[in-house]
């Protein structure tokens, strides 16, 4: 069992920690160097946690659990106008990022209004490529309920809705979870009660994702996403030259590889694992709706008959 962990510490000697985690059989998912500080998102085997904690203490760094690590979340706003940006949407996206998720912001073209709102087929497909979608709605109970009846049509991933009124999840149609006390906020969320609301959102999302994990565990993916990432990094060196913020974004049962599909999909399909199988035997390699990236979805054990 791997534990999702965030490490924040100095750049000096941080590679010792990276090597330790890799030697223990863990994975480094993301490394951000900001001047003299480094932030690492990693998966560490649970039984080896004391060793990693001791090393982090030695390096005067800080370890925290980041339950959203290894997930890709879409934060969806009705549009990208002043009404929703920059404050609320960016606050939520950034907060979820701090908890380890990779967030993508999606602004719908015609998501406004309770009667006139629409989601296009392209937007729906794009949102469906993520692990979870957070819909950031407004102030009025009636509007949120009316809108929810139609806006999430065709979205197959869990939908978390935010808004101002305190509603029960059962009252919001088609939503997996609802978090109140948000609404349309035009200032930076920094007061203590606002930060608590954000904490609550992260908690609710963590619970929803845990449920998804439980479902996934019943029929586990034939290959673990961090392994896909590791093998791509070793076998396709071009990925290391990619300037995208996260060249391989992990999802719960796959990954998004930020290389052009036409040029690289064969190379990706033919990636070899030490067990003797290639990637295309254990996963689907698909063109992503996001730019021309590659989307990898691991096949479940019930289809392949084995797990590597």
């Amino acid at each position, binding site marked *: 069992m791997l534990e999702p962990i965030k490490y924040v510490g100095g750049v000096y000697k941080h590679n010792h920690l990276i090597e330790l985690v890799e030697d223990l059989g863990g994975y480094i998912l993301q490394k951000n160097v900001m001047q003299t500080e480094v932030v690492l998102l990693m998966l560490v085997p649970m039984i080896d946690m004391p060793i990693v904690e001791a090393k982090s203490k030695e390096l005067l760094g800080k370890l925290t659990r980041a339950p959203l690590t290894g997930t890709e979340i879409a934060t969806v706003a009705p*549009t990208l106008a002043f*009404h929703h940006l920059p404050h609320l949407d960016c606050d939520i996206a950034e907060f979820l990022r701090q908890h380890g998720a990779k967030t993508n912001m999606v602004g719908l073209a015609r998501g406004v*209004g*309770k009667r006139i709102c629409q989601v296009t087929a392209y937007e729906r497909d794009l949102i469906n490529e993520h692990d979870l979608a957070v819909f950031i709605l407004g102030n009025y*109970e009636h509007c949120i309920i009316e809108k929810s009846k139609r806006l999430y049509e065709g979205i197959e991933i869990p939908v978390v809705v935010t808004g101002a009124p305190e509603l029960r999840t059962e009252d919001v149609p088609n939503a997996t979870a609802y978090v109140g006390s948000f*609404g*349309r*906020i035009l*200032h930076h969320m920094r007061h203590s009660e606002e930060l608590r609301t954000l904490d609550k959102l992260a908690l609710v999302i963590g619970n929803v994702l845990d449920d998804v994990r439980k479902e996934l565990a019943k029929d586990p993916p034939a290959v673990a996403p961090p392994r896909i990432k590791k093998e791509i990094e070793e076998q396709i060196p071009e990925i290391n030259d990619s300037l995208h913020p996260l060249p391989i974004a992990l999802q719960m049962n796959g990954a998004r590889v930020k290389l052009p599909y036409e040029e690289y999909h064969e190379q990706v399909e033919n990636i070899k694992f030490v067990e003797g199988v290639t990637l295309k035997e254990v996963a689907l390699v698909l063109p992503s709706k996001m730019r021309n990236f590659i989307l990898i979805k691991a096949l479940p054990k019930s289809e392949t008959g084995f797990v590597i």
Partner: protein
Amino acid sequence: MEQLETFIVESPDATGAKATKILIQDSLADLSLNRVIGRLKVFVDPVEPVFIFTALLRLGSPAVKLKDFAIVDMGTLGKDEVKIELQRETFAVKLLNKLWAKYGKENIEQPDKKIIIVKTDPMKELDVLKELVIEEPQAEVLDRLIDAVALRIIPEGFRVRKHELSTSHILFVASEDTLKPEWIAKAKDMLNSLRSEDNA
């Protein structure tokens, strides 16, 4: 009338009204419009749906014209020119920019710090120049106000709108559907009640 003497957001949905009130405060503060609005009344009914925004304004100083801070006169006798003698230099930069845009840089001379010569027909242009508007604080404020109300405060889905805008008041009625006459009548009533507070 003090700033934001009255600030009421009415709605059948109390939580929504509270959130909308904070939202209006934020946008007014962002665009530094707090001092501009005297009284403000908003009505929202999400079920109908309608959003009514009415406010009485207290705008700042009126437009600044060239004659307010300079002596505009004929230039040298026999030449086609107008002489502007500045009494205050505050607006010199804005004035020069306006003159350059209107007459071209080659037709403007500044032999002295406080003297500007414009090469043009004095018979035609003298009066026009005297009335030239250099700064319009009121218009700028109104622009910002429209930005705040129309582009930030009114819910985005409410695309059908009716507005009234003057130097003394602002009135917006917005909805997703066709506007009903009774909403507009209600908006006028709200504005009148704000005005009557003024007289009381």
